[in-house]
């Protein structure tokens, strides 16, 4: 039984699953970051309507479980097949892997928008005023003064978001993506050997813990003198715990 589960062929399958898991994280995180930028810009807008729009976007996508969202997009899209075909989006949405990337990126962008917004808002306003009074324009002041101070603040919560995505990528297996969990469930259904769950569990713990330690090291190295931990402790920075 044991030999059966851990045959070379099955180990290769598991490795393939791991590759899918890593691919989901590597694609979703930067894509979501890109999507979060307009939301953050809208949050800082002078127009109330734009602020309201960004807030609703964030509220909705943070309130709905990612699994419910995934089912809605993956299965619900079939009701709008003709419309999506006309828009050229059908291929993207109907394929499980790309559907997962799109849905997860939209969901994660809401969380990343909150992180980015919080980190920028946590920089004291006097910094911007001082930069402006030195003659920098709005964009320059933001790029050269505010952003360098908010990146160290965002690093910790952003790391939590990546960790969350490493774990959430397993939900892709529920729309027949053969990521690490997808392969594991398939192997379990074939063999009913409980020990098959052990290897992926260890793999996830190593991935998550390894990423956390690396991030902590990077924080200590590059963010010396920043007060990210203090802001976090004071509850001024949001984080998905």
């Amino acid at each position, binding site marked *: 039984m044991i030999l059966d589960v851990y045959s070379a062929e099955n180990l290769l399958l598991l490795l393939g699953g791991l590759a899918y898991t890593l691919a989901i994280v590597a694609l979703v995180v930067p894509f979501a970051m890109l999507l979060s930028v307009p939301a953050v810009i809208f949050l800082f807008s002078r127009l109330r309507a734009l602020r309201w729009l960004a807030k609703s976007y964030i509220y909705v996508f943070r309130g709905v479980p990612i699994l419910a969202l995934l089912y809605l997009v993956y299965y619900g899209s079939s009701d709008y097949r003709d419309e999506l075909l006309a828009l050229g989006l059908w291929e993207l949405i109907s394929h499980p892997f790309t559907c997962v990337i799109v849905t997860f990126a939209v969901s994660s962008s809401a969380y990343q928008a909150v992180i980015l917004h919080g980190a920028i808002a946590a920089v004291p306003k006097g910094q911007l005023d001082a930069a402006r009074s030195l003659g920098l324009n709005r964009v320059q002041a933001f790029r050269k003064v505010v952003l360098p101070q908010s990146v160290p603040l965002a690093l910790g919560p952003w790391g939590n978001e990546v960790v969350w995505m490493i*774990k959430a990528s397993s939900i892709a297996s529920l729309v027949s993506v053969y990521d690490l969990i997808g392969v594991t469930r398939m192997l379990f259904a074939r063999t009913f050997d409980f020990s098959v769950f052990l290897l992926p569990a260890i793999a996830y713990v190593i991935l998550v813990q390894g990423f956390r330690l690396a991030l902590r090291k990077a924080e200590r190295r590059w963010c010396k003198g920043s007060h990210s931990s203090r802001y976090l*402790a004071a509850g001024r920075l949001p984080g998905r715990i």
Partner: protein
Amino acid sequence: MPEILSFGAAGWGDELVLGALTSIGLALVTLPSGVALGLALALLRQGRSKALRRVSGGFVIAFQGIPELLTILIVYYGLQMLLNAVFVPLTGAGLELSSFLAGVIALSLVFAAFASDVFLSALNAIPRGQFEAADALGLTYWQRLRLVVWPQLLRLSLPGLSNLWMVLLKETSLVSVIALHELMRQTRLAAAATKEFATLYAACCVLYLLLAMISSLGLARIERAFPQRDQRAA
């Protein structure tokens, strides 16, 4: 409102609402056990025994790192096999593990791992003088915990626990994979029966959003009701 979401024999509205109630029930049952286990973990993680510190620390790393979905599967199949190994030789018949119980156990383990972090930082936020004063009054360890630490701990950890509650509410949807008839699974069944995918899944999302809204309103009330340190009358 489309007819498919109506209540009664023709629509699936009542089935979805029933599922939502099961989701809430699952989260409500998970909460106390998760909080209790999380508090115990936090106390162990900063306790005197090195072995217990290691074990509790390892527990936290494991259940923070393993995806909730995998934890649910491991608890469900693992406990079922354990039950079979114990009961089949004894009684000749198996005992079936309820998916509700498996869900509660799995989600409690995950909740506790994250809650212990919240409690740990809350413990560190309680001024040292409070502990010293309790010692000076001659309180025992448990008296100190119950009378001095706990009331302050609860207030300090409330924001973190509120956050975890919102996460928990969403995580209950994952228990649908072990066939618990909560909101997510009810929606899947309804969608499979009627082929009205978009409408039903959209309704499901709206219901989850509603649960989140009600929760955040309730939690804001609770947080406001808590006396702040400065305002508390002597």
